[in-house]
């Protein structure tokens, strides 16, 4: 695989993560209460972490990439998209986060299906795996704190 193709894909993923950082920054401005801002700040910090991971990947060779897949428990599939609003509660913010990760995951899965090139497939698989891990993190929080009784 030409190096340019590899770094283009990583750049694409990086752009998405940076957009996510921007998105949560904007949400912080919309939010009205300290509890919302604290959580949004934490999620934003995680997205910044993802940016760092991807930047590090740029300096690595594609062969060094490790693919980790997390099973999809569909915990957020049937949840309704929450809208950013100044009175968002914990549940709303987690739903927003899960849905974003869900969409990113679906995008990389889609790209994965569309390519036959084994090296490209590996990168998309890695990126899809990363997104599903992030989604799973929020799903676990949702399970534990939003629906402890269900």
């Amino acid at each position, binding site marked *: 695989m030409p190096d340019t193709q590899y770094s283009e894909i990583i750049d694409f993923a990086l752009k998405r993560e940076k957009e996510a950082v921007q998105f949560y920054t904007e949400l912080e401005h919309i939010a*009205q*209460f*300290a*509890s919302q*801002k*604290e*959580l949004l700040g*934490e999620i934003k910090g995680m997205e910044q972490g993802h940016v760092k991971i991807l930047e590090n990947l740029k300096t690595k060779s594609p062969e060094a990439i490790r693919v980790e897949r997390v*099973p999809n*428990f*569909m*915990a957020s*599939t*049937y*949840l*309704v998209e*929450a809208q950013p609003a100044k009175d968002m*509660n*914990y*549940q709303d913010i987690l*739903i927003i986060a899960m849905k974003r990760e869900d969409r990113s995951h679906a995008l990389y899965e889609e790209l994965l299906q569309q390519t036959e090139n084994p090296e490209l497939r590996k990168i998309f698989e890695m990126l899809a795996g990363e997104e599903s891990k992030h989604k799973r993190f929020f799903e676990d*929080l949702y*399970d534990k*704190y*939003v*629906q*402890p*009784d*269900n």
Partner: protein
Amino acid sequence: MSLKDILSPLTVWRRTAEKPYTVIDPINDRPGAARYRGFHKNDMEACIGCGTCETICQNAAIDLVPVEGIETTNGDSGLRPQIDYGRCCWCALCVDICTTSSLTMSNEYIWVDTDPEVFRFVPGAENKPWDNSELGYSRAEGYQLLDPERVEMPELEPDTRLTSFIEMVQGYSAEQAKKEADRCVECGICMAACPAHMDIPGYIKAIRENDINGGLALMYQTNPFPASCGRICTHRCEEVCAINHTGDPIAIRWLKRYIADMADESDYQAITKTAEPERTEKVAIIGAGPGGLSAAYYLRLLGYQVTVFEAQPHGGGMLRYGIPEYRLPYDQLDKDIDLVASLGVEIKYNTRINGLKESNGPKESDGPGSDGGPAPSFEQLYQDYDAVFFSTGLPDPYTLGIQGEDHPRVISGISILEDVTAGKTPDLRKSVAVVGGGNVAMDAARTARRMGCEVTVLYRRREVDMPADEEEITEAKEEGVKFITQAIPVRIEDKPEAKGEQAAFVWGEAEMVDQGEDRRPKPVLQEDKIHTDLFDTVVPAIGQGSSLDFIPEDMAAKIGIIKYKIKVGLHGETGEPKIFAGGDISNRLKDAISAIADGHRAAKGIDRYLRENQSKKETS
């Protein structure tokens, strides 16, 4: 010289030709009988270090000692019996009484050593030749020195229960309470498991000795809600009770209730009074739930001037507006609250503290009884008082988050329970689906049954995973509540023919995916196994969140909020030295006794903070 004297030496010499009388290899030649009581063996994993063996030993031959590799855990003191064979008389009382049956005796009785110290050892901790011996003494099947059976609590029959909200548990008589108290071995293992570390063996002993006031005084040392906790406590103590290993745990919660029921209300104040001098410092408390009132009680005992601000027209928090009357009658809750108030704690009801800088009046929804005066803001309290404690709970119900949930026939479990407390009749109609498997779901379901509804509980996981108390689930079943487990909510539809009068609840069957030890399995929706059921009312009861909007942003940053919860230290300290917090908004267990314990610890923290402040002022 007689002839006998002459012949005797010859008789002795004759013995030399006979078989010797001494046992040359005694260990092999003279084994103990099969059930002989020889050196002890102890199954270190099964033993919980309760010390009952030590207590019963008449020769003081047993000491409970720390053992390397054995940790103190919930339900295990981390100690193990050490036996002194210079004192042991091999009576086996220790084996007969052992609460876990971990202690037994081998049939080995011979051990030769020149060092007397080695005859004092911890069975099971040091390898001994008899450790694997099959023979010896153990308690015979069915033979019990301890009574394994709990005295049954009289309860109303399910049919009678459904006719009203009358309390279903009727309480022990004096005779029953004494009989139950007699089963306790006073080991104290339960005390560590109780979040408030109540002196359980102490008040159980008081029942045995018919010292009700003494028992009540002991309870008030760590818990000013004995009448309430005696009914609805999550009784974590009973799970670890030593007797639970081979029989039913002691009914600790019911015994607590017995004392609270028996104590004369007129004696309460005398029992709980202290001689602390009055102090001038003022403490504001937000929330008259168990957390807030517990802090108020202990601060008042220390002499502080305490004012509690409560949004609702009555105190008790979720104990009143969540837990239904058939589990905790209001007069019993009031008994606990009245004692706190009677000590001089001022409780301002209908007063919702808000985050606004300027004062505002009570909300219209705060109900009657409002004095119409302005409710202070959080900032005002911060300025006007020497310390602030808040325990505002988790009032906001989370939604199912699925499509169609804004259907008019969806009503949250918490709002149903709150309505019933406020004397309103929730509009439930006939068929009701309650979604969730916790205590709120059980309370909502059983409340709906008492209002004549047909109730189905739908829960995403298996019955064993339900967070509700086992007895609540059993009682709900007895009362005719149906359960559908492994049912994942998918969406709520409005069938055209139902015209908003009924909700079509769409749910799918779940397949459980194991997540390893100590983690709840994950329910995964099977999209090809979808069901639709029509209900008059759908009641989500899956969890609640905090409402911290009353804390202004600049203050919140200092206090420290993590994931919508308040971050506190051991004594309820927040990041702002003058502000303390506790109860459901900060702890993990989210039950009444944990909130009470938080309130008590925070009172100690506030006391320390105010005293340090005072001494700083005096030295400056």
